[in-house]
């Protein structure tokens, strides 16, 4: 870190003397180039370069030096050297012999496509590492909360349960009811043609319990709560509240992430069961209305036809979706830098990403379960 070794170029404007000092090597290249960009060149026609302060010179330093000299020569200045060590002078001459090659070297401008590709890959890799680190930190916070439940923010958990679980009941109830209605309507058309009316129970039951109810619940919660998480954390980040939380001795994972993850872990399975009930109710009403299947008949058939496993599979998916939604929402919130305008952007990304991941994991479930023959 010693100062005298850093490459430096100072200009004595009044006397037309340029003094070089320090190590003119590859390590100080960027600093040197930045300095030269800002330098004020002397006005005199005859310029003296004082190279006595140069303690080390490599090809990179020599190229920088050569470019400065060329620039002055083009302006018609006369350059004289004092104090440059002979071995450095030799290197400078060697570099000057390669003048054509140096002129072809890019100074500043668009980097080569390989470089750009490298930067892009590096950025993506860093993002992936960050996401994994976030997952790790969340897991650690979770483990810590399991070991000592007192550190958990119960109030935040209760608030989150109310807002993300209880308040979502009407919309999820209505939508799953309508989904049951839609499936039953579409099925009724086909089944009536085949005369297999009673199979409406199998159709509505399996489709809803196993696939539709968990999926529709997860998608709704992603839109409703996942986006809210991103916006909340992002806004706190922009207003420095997040930093304030940290300086007050509270980890943002404990205060913000964990209560949200736990709340959704509890709420999403419950909401899925609720969606199951209302969806089947919708299907049942259409069956009675369109196919003349009495409700009692529907329910007794339901008991025989629908294996418990469909219900369980639907229920197993819910906690997985919950973790995905909560973590994506929070992660995107922490990714917000700078101004409020990026909050909106990140919120959109958060919703799209969590819905995407929910559907991907749903597909994975189907594949794995099929493979197991369940």
């Amino acid at each position, binding site marked *: 870190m010693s*100062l005298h070794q850093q490459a430096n170029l100072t200009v004595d404007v009044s006397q037309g003397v340029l003094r070089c000092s320090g190590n003119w090597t590859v390590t100080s290249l960027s600093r040197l180039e930045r300095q030269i960009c800002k330098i004020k060149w002397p006005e005199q026609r005859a310029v003296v370069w004082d190279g006595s302060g140069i303690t080390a010179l490599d090809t990179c330093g020599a190229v920088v030096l050569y470019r400065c000299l060329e620039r002055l020569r083009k302006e018609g200045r006369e350059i004289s050297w004092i104090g440059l060590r002979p071995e450095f002078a030799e290197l400078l001459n060697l570099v000057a012999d390669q003048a054509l090659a140096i002129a072809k070297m890019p100074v500043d401008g668009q980097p080569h496509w390989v470089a750009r590709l490298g930067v892009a890959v590096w950025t993506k890799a860093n993002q992936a590492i960050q996401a994994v680190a976030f997952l790790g930190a969340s897991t650690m916070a979770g483990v810590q909360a399991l070991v000592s439940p007192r550190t958990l923010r119960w109030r935040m958990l209760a608030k989150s349960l109310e807002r993300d679980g209880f308040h979502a009941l009407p919309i999820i109830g209505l939508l799953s009811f309508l989904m049951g209605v839609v499936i039953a309507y579409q099925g009724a058309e086909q089944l009536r043609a085949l005369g297999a009316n009673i199979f409406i129970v199998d159709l509505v039951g399996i489709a809803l319990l196993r696939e539709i109810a968990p999926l529709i619940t997860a998608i709704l919660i992603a839109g409703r709560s996942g986006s809210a998480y991103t916006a909340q954390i992002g806004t706190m980040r922009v*207003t420095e*509240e997040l*930093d*304030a939380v*940290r*300086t*007050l001795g509270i*980890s943002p994972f404990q205060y913000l992430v964990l209560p949200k993850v736990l709340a959704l872990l509890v709420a999403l399975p419950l909401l899925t069961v609720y969606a199951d009930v209302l969806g089947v109710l919708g299907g049942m009403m259409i069956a009675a209305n369109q196919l003349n299947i009495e409700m009692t008949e529907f329910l007794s058939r339901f008991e025989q036809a629908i294996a418990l496993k469909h219900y369980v599979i639907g229920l197993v998916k819910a906690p997985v979706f919950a973790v995905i939604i909560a973590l994506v929402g929070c992660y995107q919130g922490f990714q917000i830098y700078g101004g409020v305008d990026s909050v909106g952007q990140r919120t959109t990304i958060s919703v799209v990403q969590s819905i995407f991941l929910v559907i991907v994991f749903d597909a994975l479930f189907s594949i794995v379960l099929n493979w197991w023959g369940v």
Partner: protein
Amino acid sequence: MNSPTSSQPAPSTLDIRTFASPISEANTQPLASSSTRPTVLELRAVTCAYEPQRPAIEAMSLTAAQGDILCLLGPSGCGKTTTLRAIAGFERVTYGEIRLNGRLVSSPQHHVPSEERRVGMVFQDYALFPHLCVADNITFGLHRWPAAARRERLRIMLDLIGLKGLEHRYPHELSGGQRQRVALARALAPNPVLLLLDEPFSNLDPDMTVKMREELLQLLRGTRTTTVLVTHDHDEAFAMADQVAVLHGGRLVQCDAPETLYHLPNCPFVAEFVGQADFIPGVIENGKVMTEIGEFPRQGTYQGGNHVLVMIRPDDIRIVRVGHGTARIEYRQFRGSENLYRIRLPSGRHIHCAQPSTHVYAIGTAVELEIIATHTVLFEQSSTR
């Protein structure tokens, strides 16, 4: 008083020690010598880089003893906020180390997260929690305290900031000054080892600023809180700090007591940044500095060429004869307690001169100047400004 040391080799190295003692003694500080108090904060050659090769701060070395108020002063983009964020633990360091109460908290290999540093911070926009009332905001950091202790602490903090009776209000129902006090109480409530203030007065109107500055200083002295303050305003730095660190381009330029900084800056940048300063060229001859406005005694330990720049503060010169002389008044700025004149010298250079408020001269008046400087600050003529 602290023996000030400049942490960077400067273009001209003045022996500040010999000068600092008489001035500093006049300024009575309620604290004992820094050598008897334990060091709370120590930065050793800290470098932070958002992108490699372009460090936001470089080789930053600072210390603060128990009860000290250290101010980071510099123009915007000089790295003062980055330094503060590195101390708070929001930024990782790429070189060097930070110690709090002797404990290593930041180094390239080791990073203690902010929440385990016990550092209080008041943010520029206060960052109060909008959904919590004043009482909940203040006790936010006390969640592990027993309820009774928490209530007691809240009472003490409300007394301290004088907001008793407002504990059930929400931040949006408070004025700017009240909000700042709540932010301060929130930061101080968990007994931090170090308090960080990020431009604490930038959101207050000027009248309020002076009042809050006094209140805050009294409060910090009263509680003996070690503080690091960030500002771009030298008045604020001078009014509050025991030590002022001037930053420029991510580097520490000078760290000294305010008086030393003003009277004996170690480079032209500091000289200009902490107050009005003009530089006129001079030549050293026979132990005196000859300039176009007269001769200055050659003082300090300036070593360098004979062609120098002499720093002139507006209160270093006086107008003695009006109607004679070769200098002319070009512009007058009325500042209430004084008049600041811009005077054009025969060579075409400008210097500034402060005169009492009642001495009003017309623009264009020829004047003669007298040097009343008690000390001379010299810089090498080629040093970049």
